[in-house]
C-alpha cells in the first residue's frame, strides 16, 4: 500500500471568542503554478529562494491602468518609476507598452539611457541631482523636475553658461487632506512657495517651464486626495496662463496609487480596500476637465505610477528550513528568505501560500527568515497548514520595491526570472556570488597576512 503524504500533527485549542465578522477560513489553495510553470520546477532549475515576475501580469495591469485614464482623458502618458523596480527587463516591458522613464538618481538616469529611452522621454525627479547630472539631462533635452530653490538657481546659472533653455517643471507639495502631509519634496502650494518659484523661473526667462509635478504620498487609499491635488495643480497652471500668458504642456500627478497588498494594522484586506485605477482616474480626469482649461489647451496628463503597476506581477518563492516551538507555545517556521529580500514585509502582511498539496488544518505560526537577527520576521502571525522541512511557499505581490530595496546582508541575493507571454522562463538577474560581493573591496598590503 502506498504511503500517505506526511503532515506534521497539530493540536489547536478552540476558544469561544467573539464571532469573526469575516466568517471561517475558507481553506487553503496551494499556489502550485505561476503562468503555467510549476513552482517546484522553477526552484529546481533556478534555486530557492527565487523572485519570479510575470510579463503577462505586468502588461495586463499596465493596459488596465492606461485604459482607465485614456478613456476618461484625451492626453495621457505614463512614465515608469525606475525606483519601484529597475530590472532592465521590467523597465523594457513598460517601455514597450509606451511608458516613458521616471528616474530619481544619476544611475537610474543612465540606466534609462542604456535601456534605449530617448533623453526627451526621461523625467528626472528627486532632490539629489549634481551639476554633472543637470548637464547630462540638459544635453539630452530631458524633463528636469526642480525640487528646491538651490536646484533652481544652479539650473539658471547652468542655462546661462550653456546658452540653452532646459525643459523644467517644478515639484509642488500641498495639503490634500491626507496625513502625514508630504511636504519635504518640492515647493508648497498653500504658503505660496510654488507660486514664488514659478515667478522666479518665468521672470528669469532662462528655463523653459513646461509642466508642474506633484507626488502627494504613497499607498494612497483615499482616491479623493488626487481630486484635491489635481484642482490645485490646475489652479496653478491656469494662474500661469492668466498672469504670464504662458501655457504649460503637462501636469504630472506623480505616483502613490496603492497596490492590493495589506498594510500592517489594516482592518480590511488590501484587495478590498485599494481603490481601482478607475477610481483614481475618475478623480484626476474629472478635476482636470472641470478646472476651466480651454478644450484645445488641455495639458498632457503624466502619471508615474509604480507600485500599483508591478506589485501583482512579482512572486517570491522560498523553502522551509526548519520548524520549532517558541517558549510561549507558538509554532515558528523558518524560511530561506527574510527581510533581506522581502523588505516590504516591514509594512505589509504579505499573502503567503503553500506551493504543494496541503490539508485544510491550519495553525497560527510565526514566519522567520534565515538571518541571525531578531528583526527577521516575515509574518508575526499567519494561519498556514503545517509545513514540513523542504516544503515550498509562494509570497504574493512582491513586484514593487523588493528588487530595488533588498539588502546584501548575511545572505547573497538570489536569481530573478521573468516568465514571458509564451510561458517560457528567462533569467533576468543572476544570483550573487562571493566574487561579486568582493569585487569592489581592497585590502591594504599590511592586512593581507596574519597568523592565528
Amino acid at each position: 500500500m502506498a504511503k500517505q503524504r506526511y503532515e506534521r500533527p497539530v493540536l489547536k485549542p478552540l476558544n469561544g471568542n467573539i464571532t469573526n465578522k469575516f466568517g471561517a477560513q475558507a481553506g487553503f489553495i496551494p499556489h502550485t503554478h505561476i503562468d503555467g510553470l510549476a513552482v517546484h520546477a522553477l526552484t529546481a532549475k533556478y534555486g530557492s529562494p527565487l523572485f519570479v515576475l510575470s510579463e503577462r501580469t505586468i502588461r495586463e495591469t499596465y493596459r488596465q491602468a492606461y485604459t482607465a485614464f485614456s478613456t476618461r482623458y484625451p492626453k495621457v502618458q505614463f512614465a515608469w518609476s525606475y525606483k519601484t523596480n529597475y530590472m532592465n527587463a521590467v523597465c523594457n516591458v513598460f517601455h514597450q507598452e509606451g511608458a516613458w522613464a521616471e528616474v530619481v538618481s544619476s544611475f537610474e538616469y543612465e540606466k534609462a539611457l542604456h535601456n534605449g529611452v530617448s533623453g526627451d522621454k526621461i523625467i528626472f525627479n528627486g532632490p539629489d541631482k549634481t551639476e554633472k547630472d543637470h548637464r547630462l539631462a540638459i544635453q539630452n533635452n530631458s524633463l528636469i523636475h526642480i525640487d528646491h530653490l538651490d536646484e533652481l538657481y544652479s539650473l539658471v546659472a547652468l542655462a546661462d553658461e550653456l546658452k540653452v533653455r532646459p525643459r523644467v517643471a517644478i515639484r509642488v507639495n500641498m495639503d490634500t487632506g491626507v496625513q502625514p502631509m508630504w511636504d519635504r519634496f518640492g515647493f508648497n502650494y498653500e504658503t505660496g512657495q510654488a507660486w514664488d518659484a514659478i515667478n522666479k523661473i518665468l521672470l528669469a526667462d532662462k528655463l523653459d517651464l513646461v509642466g508642474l509635478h506633484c507626488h502627494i504620498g504613497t499607498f494612497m487609499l483615499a482616491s479623493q486626495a488626487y481630486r484635491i491635488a489635481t484642482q490645485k495643480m490646475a489652479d496653478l497652471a491656469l494662474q500661469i496662463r492668466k498672469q504670464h500668458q504662458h501655457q504649460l504642456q503637462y501636469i504630472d500627478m506623480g505616483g502613490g496609487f496603492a497596490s492590493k497588498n495589506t498594510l500592517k494594522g489594516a482592518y480590511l484586506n488590501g484587495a478590498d480596500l485599494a481603490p481601482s485605477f478607475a477610481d483614481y482616474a475618475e478623480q484626476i480626469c474629472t478635476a482636470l476637465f472641470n478646472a476651466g482649461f480651454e478644450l484645445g489647451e488641455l495639458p498632457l496628463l503624466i502619471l508615474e505610477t509604480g507600485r500599483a503597476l508591478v506589485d501583482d506581477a512579482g512572486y517570491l518563492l522560498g523553502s522551509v528550513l526548519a520548524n520549532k516551538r517558541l517558549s510561549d507555545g507558538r509554532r515558528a517556521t523558518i524560511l530561506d528568505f527574510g527581510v533581506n529580500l522581502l523588505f516590504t514585509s516591514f509594512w505589509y502582511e504579505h499573502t503567503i501560500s503553500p506551493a504543494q498539496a496541503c490539508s485544510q488544518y491550519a495553525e497560527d505560526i510565526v514566519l522567520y527568515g534565515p538571518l541571525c537577527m531578531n528583526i527577521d520576521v516575515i509574518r508575526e502571525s499567519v494561519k498556514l497548514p503545517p509545513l514540513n522541512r523542504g516544503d515550498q511557499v509562494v509570497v504574493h505581490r512582491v513586484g514593487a520595491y523588493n528588487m530595488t530595496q533588498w539588502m546584501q546582508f548575511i545572505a547573497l541575493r538570489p536569481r530573478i526570472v521573468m516568465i514571458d507571454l509564451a510561458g517560457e522562463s528567462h533569467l533576468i538577474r543572476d544570483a550573487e556570488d562571493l566574487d561579486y560581493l568582493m569585487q569592489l573591496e581592497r585590502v591594504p598590503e599590511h592586512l593581507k597576512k596574519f597568523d592565528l
Partner: protein
Amino acid sequence: MKLKNNIAIAENGFIFNAARGDSFTTNPIGIFILQGLKNNWDKARLCQEILVKYEIDEATCEKDLYDFLKMLKHYDLIEE
C-alpha cells in the same frame, strides 16, 4: 504515557476534555497518534507506526511526535 480517561475524540478530529470543558481540533495524523495512545502505544511504537503509514523520515517523525506529545501534556490531555 496514556490518554486521560475523560478525553473524547471524534472521527473528524474534534477533541473534548470532559473534565475541564476544553475542546481542540487536530488533523488526521493527530487522530492517528491519539488512537495509538488509546491503544497504549509507547513513543517508539507510535513512531514506528507513523513511519509505516506516512512518507516521512525517522528524524522528522520523532521531532514532530515529541512536540505533539508535549502539547498534549501541556493541555492536560495525557498523563505520564
